[in-house]
């Protein structure tokens, strides 16, 4: 029943991630919603802005014995492409003020400057903020 609503109903969804992981539940919740939403064959993009960039930093270590004992969900970002979620964007300015480079990130992303990020947001049908 894929075509029940017609092709015209594919919308552009942007998940806007602005929070650091673990300190609050926003990052994990966003990822859960992305995975659920992936079943609906929409045009999905993920943006990492402000502390959201920290969500996709490499080498999270949350082990129970000496660590914080929470689930390390950062590896899940690497399987998003299996769900056809392939458009990941990071704001250059957010990355730079945190001393991070592309090499510090766990997934391949497209780096956008502030103006490009603003344009990306402007072209969406739906922006889901986390």
């Amino acid at each position, binding site marked *: 029943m894929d075509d029940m609503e017609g092709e015209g109903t594919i919308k552009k969804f942007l998940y806007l991630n602005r929070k*650091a992981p673990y300190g609050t539940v926003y990052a994990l919740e966003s990822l859960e919603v992305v995975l659920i939403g992936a079943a609906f064959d929409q045009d999905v993009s993920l943006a990492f802005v402000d*502390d959201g960039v*920290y969500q996709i*930093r490499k080498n*999270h*270590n*949350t082990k129970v014995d000496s660590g914080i004992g929470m689930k390390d969900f950062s590896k899940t970002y690497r399987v998003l492409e299996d769900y056809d979620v392939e458009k990941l964007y990071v704001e250059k300015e957010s990355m730079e003020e*945190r*001393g991070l480079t592309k090499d510090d990130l766990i997934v391949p992303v497209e780096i956008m400057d502030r103006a490009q990020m603003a344009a990306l947001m402007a072209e969406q049908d739906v922006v889901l903020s986390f």
Partner: protein
Amino acid sequence: MLQTVNKSPFEKNAMQSCLRLSPQGSAVLFYEDGVYAAVKGTRFESQIKEATQQFSVYALLPDLEARGMRAEDVIDGVKTVDYSGFVDLVADNGAVQAWL
């Protein structure tokens, strides 16, 4: 007095208020999302370096590691502590002031 900061300096001004209002010689512990303040390379690095002249500055290692950072990534002059080190700081410094 032990001052604790658990919010990212990029998101909240807890670290700024803590550094502005804490008495000289205080112990300042960054934990949870607060640990981002203690890491090299951010726009807060010079401010934290200055703070280490005035305060004993600590960062909780399990929270650093959870977020992908290691002891080597913290600013020179900032000491990392584990959970038992956190307990020692509480025991040794009397009152705790939490900057939320």
